[in-house]
């Protein structure tokens, strides 16, 4: 007991010391020169929980890539079951959003979810985003904003490109990591939001077959004035990435000591991901109107060679599969807001996205010899949307929002293995409503209702000419208290109901309609700025996700997560961020349960003149953590008779490691 008390006292001391250190530093340094940009309250909220992550939240916490920035979103859990080059799995508000099936991601408004990707519906790959070139991240949990499109079932995120104010000019970064990471980055930021960012990455990874090699370039050019004839911007991006795919380790093998915690279950799995992306946008604003248009297009290639189940499906030749996807897309989006009188604004949104894709899945040997063609499909698919809504200031205290969105999917798909060809359509109408009640100067009560949709993938149209769009109804009620710039508190309750879950089962060739499920949850967020340059963020998210009929919990989704972050900037060029994150055990199929997870990450940087040195440490506690945990069947050995039962597998989170970055501002 004494040791526990002692440990608790020590822990308290450490946390207090970590939290108070920046305050002490700031007090000793006198007035602070830095005031972080507050963008969180700038945009009108579609729901209480919607928020823009500010630059200090994005900059001051450790990150390996742009997707890591999403870890700052309360309640959003990311799982990497490959290595850094592979898209992550998203878990939000009781949804296992897979690689993006239920989580919409856009970059400067350009949709990134790959609708019918061979590896996973809605696949999100952000390898092309250079993290230094992200100036803001707007996140909406739930489908409440009119502009949220397909896949925004659990929520959506829009990455805003740009170089933060403190990185203007020409800057070169070099990072060395304790586990064989070498990264070079170059950013140039000019006037009017123009920038160019490039990175080259070589990382051996924290374990066997977890390496990544990546090169990416991202640039944006703007001309004109939004209020005089409009401003035009162009965005261009490209990346190449090659990475290892280590599979998922069997828990029983690791417990028995036959495999190490950071070993690869699949020592030869590989992935490659390439992309070209471009867009040209036009924005014009006046006192009464706000008009935006965006034309975009890109080319995409993904190849994934994995074996998660070893010899389960094929006891002799093994279960290795090679998935390939090639696609080209082009699209147009436009939005127009106009003020109708003093109190009302009308918003109209429309767009179309056309994609030509080819995809294949092959069963291959470990040597790469093709054994069987399991899928070969080409498709021409389009997603169109039209939405209209009004925002009405009913009185000084009450704002009402209402509208509807129509999404139409058209698909012409051809199965090259069977010769079958089919075309069809799916359509969904999604109402979106909201209200903001200003209870008092510091208090806001926000209510929102919306329907999110996920279009069926191209293969589903071969089975059913009119497969249904998955539709999820969600509601949120939230209270925000912001008495001053120094304190903001938000508390939200939310619920979602999935009446009909539909998936395409490619074996039976049927679109399966599954049972209803529902989610109920709540979140609390605290944003405290006790003094200039210091910020404390705390959050707690809880959700109960269950199947309606059986009452059983929806497996894989988190029930409880909590975060605590300290962000500090001192005037003498020192800045630091510390993040503590806890994820409670998650229910898994067949009564299994995941491990809990505790993360403690640190970033500290100091700038002197043209130089800056930054140290990032992830997993400061040095715990063996599990990032992804799954229950499925696998057989390690060829010809193995038993082992058909589903068993626990996991992907480890990185062990404690450090990265040191030296930056030079050239001008």
């Amino acid at each position: 007991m004494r040791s526990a008390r002692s440990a608790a006292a020590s822990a308290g001391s450490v946390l207090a010391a970590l939290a108070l250190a920046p305050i002490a530093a700031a007090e000793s340094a006198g007035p602070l020169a830095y005031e972080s940009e507050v963008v969180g309250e700038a945009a009108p909220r579609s729901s209480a929980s919607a928020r823009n992550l500010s630059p200090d939240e994005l900059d001051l916490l450790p990150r390996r890539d742009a997707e890591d920035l999403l870890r700052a979103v309360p309640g959003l859990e990311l799982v990497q079951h490959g290595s850094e080059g592979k898209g992550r799995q998203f878990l939000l508000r009781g949804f296992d959003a897979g690689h993006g099936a239920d989580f919409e991601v856009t970059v400067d408004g350009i949709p990134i979810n790959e609708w019918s990707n061979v590896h996973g519906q809605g696949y999100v790959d952000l390898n092309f985003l250079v993290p230094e070139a992200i100036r803001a991240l707007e996140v909406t949990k739930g489908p409440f904003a009119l502009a949220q499109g397909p896949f925004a079932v659990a929520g959506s995120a829009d990455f805003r490109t740009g170089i933060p104010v403190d990185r203007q000019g020409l800057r070169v970064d070099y990072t060395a990591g304790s586990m064989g990471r070498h990264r070079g980055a170059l950013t140039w930021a000019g006037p009017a939001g123009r920038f160019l960012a490039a990175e080259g990455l070589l990382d051996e990874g924290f374990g066997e077959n977890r390496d990544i090699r990546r090169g990416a370039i991202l640039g944006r050019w703007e001309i004109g004035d939004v209020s005089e004839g409009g401003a035009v911007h162009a965005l261009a991006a490209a990346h190449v990435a090659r990475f290892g795919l280590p599979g998922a380790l069997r828990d029983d093998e690791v417990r028995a000591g036959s495999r190490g915690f950071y070993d690869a279950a699949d020592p030869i799995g590989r992935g490659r991901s390439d992309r070209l992306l471009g867009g040209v946008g036009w924005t014009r604003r006046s006192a009464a109107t706000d008009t935006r248009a965006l034309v975009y297009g890109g080319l995409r290639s993904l190849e994934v060679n994995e074996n998660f189940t070893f010899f389960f499906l094929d006891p002799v030749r093994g279960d290795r599969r090679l998935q390939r996807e090639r696609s080209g897309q082009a699209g147009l989006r436009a939005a127009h807001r106009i003020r109708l009188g003093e109190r009302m604004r009308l918003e109209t949104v429309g767009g179309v996205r056309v994609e030509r894709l080819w995809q294949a899945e092959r069963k291959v040997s470990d040597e790469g010899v093709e054994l069987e063609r399991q899928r070969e499909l080409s498709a021409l698919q389009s997603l169109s949307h039209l939405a209209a809504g009004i925002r009405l200031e009913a009185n000084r205290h009450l704002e009402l929002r209402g509208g509807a969105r129509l999404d139409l999917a058209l698909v012409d798909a051809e199965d090259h293995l069977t010769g079958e060809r089919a075309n069809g359509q799916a359509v969904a109408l999604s109402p979106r409503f909201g209200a903001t009640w200003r209870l008092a100067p510091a208090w806001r009560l926000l209510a929102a209702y919306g329907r999110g949709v996920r279009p069926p993938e191209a293969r589903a149209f071969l089975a059913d000419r009119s497969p249904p769009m998955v539709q999820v109804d969600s509601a949120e009620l939230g209270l925000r208290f912001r008495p001053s710039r120094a304190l903001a508190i938000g508390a939200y309750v939310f619920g979602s109901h999935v009446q009909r879950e539909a998936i395409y089962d490619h074996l039976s060739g049927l679109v399966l309609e599954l049972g209803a499920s529902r989610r109920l949850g709540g979140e609390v967020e605290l944003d405290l700025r006790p003094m200039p340059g210091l910020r404390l963020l705390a959050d707690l998210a809880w959700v109960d996700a269950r199947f309606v009929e059986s009452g059983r919990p929806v497996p894989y989704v988190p029930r409880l997560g909590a975060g605590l972050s300290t962000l500090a900037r001192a005037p003498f060029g020192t800045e630091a961020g510390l993040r503590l994150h806890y994820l409670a055990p998650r229910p898994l199929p067949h009564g299994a349960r995941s491990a809990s997870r505790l993360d403690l990450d640190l970033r500290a940087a100091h700038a002197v003149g043209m130089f800056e040195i930054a140290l990032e440490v992830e997993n400061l506690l040095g715990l063996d953590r599990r990032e992804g945990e799954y229950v499925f069947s696998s057989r390690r050995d060829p010809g193995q008779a038993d082992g058909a039962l589903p068993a626990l597998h996991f992907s480890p989170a990185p062990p404690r490691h450090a990265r040191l970055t030296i930056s030079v501002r050239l001008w």
Partner: protein
Amino acid sequence: MIRSLRSVAFVALALGCSAAENPPRLRVKVAADASEIRAVLTDLGYEVRLTEAAAVVADLHFLVSETATARYRPADWLLPRAHAHPGHHHGGAIAGELAGRFVLRWLPEASRLGEATLLSGRYVGASYAFVPAEENDGVEPEDPLHGRAALLGGRVLSDERELVFVVLFDPPDQRMDHVPFDAVIDDDSAVLGLRLKLEADGGVSLFDGIDFFALAPGAGEPLVIASDHPDPEVRVAHQRLRSAFFHHRFHEVRALRGR
């Protein structure tokens, strides 16, 4: 410093961190269930009474609904679902198994096969293979079951006539899938009974269409129905019976309470 940080971890662990837990594995006994083997009347008016019924089965799988779990299983991005997916097209996803070979004897006395390992869940089906009996299975060479996958023996009654018969089944080409098994298994108190039914739903008898007395070899001699019988009519009857016997509608897995 590291020691202090470990103290933080210790406190956090004490507050609710926990290790992963594998799916609980239930050990459930599996036995032959002869409760549905009773005198049956065929469509040709024969009454069939079995006195002997046995088979050799291997690698039993017990399946939960794949439809119910499809969305929430690790999706396509994690797991391939090849055409040879064990369990798939067998009526579900495997959540229980009894690996190995077993003599499944219903009559004259029901046998016990062993203990299967099941995960908790709602089961919808079972699947197992029928294999030729070997000495290693405890079937001696002089046993008529030896080399065969199943055996049914008994008497056929019609009016005043009586015929002793035995059917020796060659193994089927494929596993028997879609065996009905409707039960929620959430503890290990159940005994799984592998039931043979001589009459399927709808009143169809396993012996329908077999004109036993037309195949009878002679007065007083038993009728042996086997694939290697010299009489082609008997071989046709064997094929018909084999198709019926290895069809899942004459089999069922029941969760019997009590041990």
